[in-house]
């Protein structure tokens, strides 16, 4: 599949945003006074901005963005519509929580709003993932590992951002010095495990469809294209026929792993031992950039490595990866 920048940016950034909102919601639901007011507001605002920025960028992917509101209408069947609805609905707890935190509430209402936010963040990311994983046409997406992958990288992104934000705003608690680095390292490791599983699956999963089943001509022998309907690219081959050389894929997977997993772990572990808060903050910032960049690469691969069944119709007349 063609790795469209707007979509990759959207899923990466909004994933981080919702991860952050989820962690914030979860924390505040457990302990409304875990953060000081400004910290809570900063985290909330950052999460909301990331989520909104991602959503906005996804509009650039549209041919008719001015009609985007229509996308809210078909939530009964469409995961994309559900995602839109969930994304918008998640701003209700965001605003409610912001108001409560602003007012200094620490009661049931804050806990309820925080809980709702956490739930909506998960729901939204699940909806985003489901847009892809529900497509039977793309084996690399339509499987049990893609959704955990989205959730895990959202969480990782959220975790590393939370760490960064708190560290950068001068929070010197154990939370920042010990707890969050541990969380980040665990999430990074989990992410790495899930992704490796996923890539393993992508490399080995048997094709559900073949040129033979696509044409129904398998009964006569093996099928190969002799002539394509068009000698140049068309929408289909541009959109779904993206070809990534295997050796490039392997290298990019390594880069992604290093960036989103190895690097944060390598920074989180020493950060726990560092004295200087500035250095901790630096570790956090670098780790955050690593995670985001790594997720970006991983997400790029998520598209670039995904083969669409329609390309079976072009078997043999187009270069294959």
């Amino acid at each position, binding site marked *: 599949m063609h790795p469209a920048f707007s979509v990759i940016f959207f899923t990466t950034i909004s994933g981080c945003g919702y991860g952050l909102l989820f962690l914030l919601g979860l924390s505040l639901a457990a302990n409304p006074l875990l953060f000081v007011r400004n910290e809570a507001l900063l985290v909330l605002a950052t999460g909301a901005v990331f989520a909104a920025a991602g959503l906005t960028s996804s509009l650039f992917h549209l041919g008719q963005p001015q009609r985007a509101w229509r996308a809210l209408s078909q939530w009964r069947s469409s995961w994309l519509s559900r995602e839109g609805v969930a994304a918008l609905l998640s701003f209700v707890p965001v605003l409610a929580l912001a108001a409560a935190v602003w007012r200094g509430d620490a009661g049931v209402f804050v806990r309820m709003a925080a809980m709702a936010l956490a739930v909506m963040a998960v729901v939204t990311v699940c909806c985003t993932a489901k847009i892809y994983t529900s497509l039977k046409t793309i084996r690399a997406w339509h499987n049990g590992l893609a959704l955990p992958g989205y959730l895990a990288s959202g969480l990782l992104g959220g975790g590393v951002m939370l760490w960064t934000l708190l560290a950068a705003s001068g929070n010197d608690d154990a939370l920042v010095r010990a707890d969050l680095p541990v969380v980040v390292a665990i999430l990074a490791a989990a992410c790495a495990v899930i992704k490796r599983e996923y890539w393993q699956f992508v490399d080995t999963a048997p094709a559900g469809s073949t040129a033979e089943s696509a044409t129904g001509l398998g009964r006569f022998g093996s099928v*190969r294209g*002799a002539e394509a*309907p*068009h*000698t*140049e690219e*068309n929408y289909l081959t541009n959109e779904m026929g993206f070809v990534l050389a295997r050796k490039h894929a392997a290298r990019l997977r390594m880069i992604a792993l290093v960036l989103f997993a190895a690097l944060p772990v390598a920074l989180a572990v020493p950060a726990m031992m560092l004295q200087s808060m500035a250095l901790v903050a630096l570790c956090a910032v670098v780790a955050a950039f690593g995670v985001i960049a790594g997720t970006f690469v991983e997400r790029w691969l998520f598209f670039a490595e995904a083969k669409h069944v329609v390309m079976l119709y072009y078997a043999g007349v187009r270069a294959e990866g």
Partner: protein
Amino acid sequence: HLGHPNAAEHRGASPSPQPSPTLSGEREQSGSGEQATSPTPSPPNPFLEGEGFKIVPADGVDISPLVVGEYVLPDGRTAVPAFQLLAERFLADEYAPENVAPQCGVDPGTIRRIAAEIADVAFNQAIRIAQRWTDAHGREHEEMIGRPVAMHAMRGISAHSNGFHTCRMLHVLQMLLGAIDTPGSFRYQPPYPKAVPPANRPGKSRKANGALDAAPLGYVHAPEDLLVEADGAPRRIDKAFSWEFPLAAHGMLQSVIRNAWAGDPCRIDTLFLFMANMGWNSAMNTTQTRAMLADRDPASGEYRIPHIIYSDAYWSETVNFADLVLPDTTYLERHDCISLLDRPISDADCASDAIRQPVCDTDPDASGRDVRPFQDVLIDLGARLGLPGLTNEGGGAKYPGGYAQYIVEHERAPGVGLLAGWRGRDGSRSGVGEPNPRQLDVYKANNCYWHAPVPAAGRYYKMANRDYLAWAKSLGFVGSTDAIVLELYSERLQTFRLAAQGHGAQQPPERERERVARFFDPLPFWYAAVDGDALLPSPTGRGAGGEGRETDQRRSEPRPSPLPLSRGERGSSGSLGEFHLSAITQRPMFMYHAWGSQNAWLRQIATHNYLYLHPDTAAAHGIGDGDWIWVESAHARIRVPARVHAGTAPGTVWTWNAIGKRKGAWKLAADAREYAKGFLLNHVIDDLLPARGDGYRYANADPVTGQAAWFDLKVRIYRDAGDLADAADAGNASNAGNAEGAA
């Protein structure tokens, strides 16, 4: 081949003007004794009675022709029915499946299977239509029986130097099957069938006013009709209707540029071309053809072809060569007519013709284009030059209204014009009638076409169906309702062979005798045409097949037999045997020759072509899918992208015709793939055959009809060592106009 004695066995039907005599068995004489009721019983003619047979007109009904055997005529000569000759030829070992398999690439088992399937379908699966009809001899039939075997062949068979005889072979096969214009078989489309050959001969001499006595193209019936000088040399610039290509009924456009350039047989002043992209895909040997169009005589510094006028509606590869370009309208902007006199749009069940009318404005102010319909321009030019057909007595223009007026008023013969519909002053006549001044209006009111259904009883066996022939005669398609005889044994071809063998007043010059004698075989035969070898007369005088054969006293004439192959010296091109792959083109169904590429939609289907080859061929040459390879003939080589295709015959490589374009032509972008990746096979096709003994080179064409033989191309292939990834950078040499001469 008995000649034409005036046979006189009379039956009800009046004998046709030139009845082919046939031998009729005695036993049938007795069996059909009651037929002595014929109105004028002829007195027995001892000259025509032999042992147990009689000579009668072949189209007599109720005769029992003796189709095989050998018969001694009363005068002592031996007569052999044409069918016996045909059977002897094709039952001979030479044509046995085992022996033809290597030549055609189909194994003997498959040949037998196909033959058996054809026979099974023709005879066991006949179609029967309950429709009464009457044959040309007056016999009534209850039903129409169909032999549902149809064959389609056009250029693939004809565009070889053995094309004519191969076509005849297929035609004969259909005759033997009875699969001519029957339900389920090949069908004639009115105004066909016509007499064999059609009556019109090519114009030969000029009238007092300078006009030709007949249309320039026509059908040669006998050596007398050839357009040759007293010494037998060709008279036409294209050498059509000469001893080199006697039956070139379509002319030989493909030879005009070469001959004009060489001044052979004569120099010309102006070359006027339209609707043929002769500077590219319509030419063979495109690179040299382009060079000839621009070549100057070093002595005088003048162009060898002094003036070139070209009319085109688009910016084809030929436009840039013209001194004068006449920008034509497109077919949406002018009147046209699709006439029964040319290539009609009829189908087998109806005669049809049609017009086009302008639907787009060509007013220069409105359209910003300065164009005129080329037919209008031709008529205008003709009138200004004072050509008799285009001026009236006073010398003024005869058709000031241009082509639209010409369509309506021009008569090829009295009452016969370009359009068959709504003729006669009042528009009441069909086919034949006076010009109708309102004819175009009526066409326009009828969706621009005229349509005359063949009567139900005349739909099949048109060559011998009275219901059809009467209808066709009423429309002026045929001159009489006599059956049109299809020949197994061609008297016309034999006339030419006899001339070459020394009979008759018109004989070929010595240098052409052997060639004419060889190829004017009255029965079809196969000969290898691959490298032109077969077309080379022996350097040592007259070959076999001359008078010497008549030593056999028992036979008045030798059996028609393929004369032996004589070998001439090869041209300078080296060993042709190395070029062992046949290279052919196929028309892409989605494009019309060159100009499909300036259609925005068709271009999206294919901007470029590949050379397709069988996996085994590719493997044998170390060629992979998508590789750039060289295609080399004895004459030139070009660099092309290859594709492996299991459906291609192993001994053949092929590509789509005319997709490759020259850089800058057709107003395509400078980096258009048509130029950067597409290619034109014509660069490697020679327009001449290798030299014969005396150095003369015939056109690369069928020696009977002059049909260009572009499908005889033989090549070898090899990978391009340079392995340029993208030809756009390198430029495709051939499309820049410079195929490399290899020899």
